[in-house]
């Protein structure tokens, strides 16, 4: 038989998720360095794209 405690923890977790409209997002710190860029340096949004042209 599984302990009840873990189930109530799971329910609590669900309640937390319901309370928060968007889950906290992980933000990575990716250095732009001197990589080629398009767009102004002071833009509100910076996209770092890793790509393979082929």
């Amino acid at each position, binding site marked *: 038989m599984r302990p009840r405690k873990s189930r109530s923890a799971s329910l609590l977790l669900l309640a937390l998720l319901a309370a928060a409209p968007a889950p906290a997002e992980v933000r990575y710190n990716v250095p732009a360095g001197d990589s080629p860029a398009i767009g102004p340096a002071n833009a509100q949004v910076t996209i*770092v794209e890793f*790509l393979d042209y082929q």
Partner: protein
Amino acid sequence: MYGGKVRLVVKNYPYRYRDFAYPAAEAALAARDQGKFREMHVLLLERSPKLDRGSLIECAKELKLDIPRFTRDLDTMAHKKEIDRDVKLAEGLDLYTTPTLFINGIKIAGDRPFESYREVIDRELPTSGPEGKGK
């Protein structure tokens, strides 16, 4: 659409087993040195996957680059260090797929419909939602 509000930084993560992935990355950086990165970036995306040596030189000609210089860069892989640095960075971030985007640090891995990028970008722009006029 996002003119002036979004900056795109390009990192090369060429897959080593694709024949033209490294030369195409080199072509982009060689064009950058000649002030034509944006133009070359667009051309490469349009021409992909036809990116053999002749096609890359053809792109350079269309952009009126210095061809001897461009060809020398291409043949010596003049920017290999810079490309390898990007690859190391990608590996350090545990990236296994391209394209992978970081939109203000929020990771979006793999090919997605443009809408899913737009949704994140719009959320990151404080003054303009989808309806916003962008002050």
